[in-house]
């Protein structure tokens, strides 16, 4: 025992001092929870058996695609971030407060949007930008969207925070969806696909009609590209037209490596929001009158 005490770490030394027999060590440092503690937990008011399930108000009928209309209400499940339900709830409250001040319409990737924001340096103190929404990302108050346009042959993009208080007005000029989650490949496409006139007038959809999906196929410019579009499973982009024979060979379906993270079940579990949680959040947000415009 003396040799162990000299060579071993602090933890072993502590054991050696307090213990009298090897049996007491096993009792004290075992991994099992004693029965009396389990009983106490069962009887306490904090246990799961005592928590009442919340009453679901079935009179409120939430539309099915509510979370697709307002994706920023869902909690943050980005990989590598800590989930914080309290923070998400507080942010939802702030978002509703902002929505009482300004009308933030529903829009999708692919819709044409005009944003007018406060600009300290402009002569009218406002700056209006029109463009096609190419990306939406972020949750809660950090939700962003990117508008893209081509002005005088120069491609321009601006990223806006949706809940930025300097935004004065958001107009949806054309409500439309695309087949893809993002349209970042418009940076590598001909300019005609991302040009939007600043004088465009808004066209309204009739009430109750579903949002139309634009199934346009865009042929990309020849390589080099900014990202590897061929690996991203895009429905609205044509890759193989403007390529040489050698480059086309690489585009065989058999040669493209499959995305492995698609089969990662644990990643899917970590990054997705459960159906029950999604329903409770959408019911909570839909109840407030500001949603029904």
């Amino acid at each position, binding site marked *: 025992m003396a040799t162990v005490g000299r060579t071993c770490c602090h933890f072993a030394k502590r054991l050696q001092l307090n213990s009298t027999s090897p049996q007491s060590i096993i009792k004290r440092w075992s991994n099992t929870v004693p029965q009396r503690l389990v009983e106490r937990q069962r009887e306490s008011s904090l246990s799961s058996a005592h928590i009442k399930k919340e009453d679901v108000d079935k009179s409120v009928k939430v539309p099915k695609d509510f979370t697709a209309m307002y994706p920023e209400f869902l909690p943050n499940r980005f990989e590598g971030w800590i989930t914080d339900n309290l923070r998400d709830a507080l942010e939802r409250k702030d978002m509703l407060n902002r929505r009482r001040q300004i009308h933030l319409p529903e829009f999708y990737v692919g819709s044409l949007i005009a944003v007018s*924001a406060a*600009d*300290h*340096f*402009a002569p009218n103190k406002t*700056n209006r*930008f029109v463009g096609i929404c190419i990306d939406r990302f972020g949750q809660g108050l950090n939700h*962003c969207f990117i508008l893209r346009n081509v*002005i*005088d*042959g*120069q*491609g*321009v*993009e*601006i*990223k*806006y*925070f949706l809940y*930025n208080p*300097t935004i004065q007005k958001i107009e949806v000029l054309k409500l439309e969806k695309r087949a893809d989650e993002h349209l970042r490949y418009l*940076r590598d496409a001909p300019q005609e696909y991302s040009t939007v006139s600043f004088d465009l007038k808004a066209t309204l959809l009739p009430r109750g009609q579903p949002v139309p999906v634009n199934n346009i196929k865009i042929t990309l410019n020849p390589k080099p590209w*900014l*990202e590897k579009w061929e690996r991203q499973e895009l429905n609205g982009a044509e890759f193989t037209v403007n390529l040489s024979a050698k480059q086309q060979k690489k585009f065989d379906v058999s040669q493209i*490596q499959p*995305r*492995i*993270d698609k089969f990662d079940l644990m990643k899917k579990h970590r990054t997705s929001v459960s159906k029950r949680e999604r329903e409770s959040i959408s019911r909570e947000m839909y109840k407030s009158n500001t949603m029904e415009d």
Partner: protein
Amino acid sequence: MHIISSRLVGELVHPNTARCIQCTIHRNFSTTKTLSELRKLSTVKIVDNSLIGKKASESGKKVKILQVYTRNQVARVGDKVLLSIQKERKKAYIVGCVQKPKAMQPRFDSNNAVLIDETGAPIGTRIRVPLPSHLRGVSGDFTKILSIATKFV
């Protein structure tokens, strides 16, 4: 996920350092996005209607940055640079960047520059592309450049 082929990189990982050694030889090979920073020897596009700028775009020769007059050696909107254009050395202001800006500020598809002479006045008489609106708030003498601009975004 990027899978590095064994043909490109001979020995993948060094046993001791756990770092890819062969990758340092293949400098064009990278698994991450480019930062698209404007440093020395990066190319820019002249957007004013000066003669020398027109000649450079017609000849197809690259206009490169020789010196960046900032502390961190990276040029952004409103910074002064030294260019080599048509075998001459000219100073210019950067008026548009590909590099990711702050929110509410425009990101351009090309790196734009406006040529200036020794007194700081622009050589051309017109700028054909839109300029970022926050250039009006950047410290420096831009009044002559702003006066020849056509549009702001």
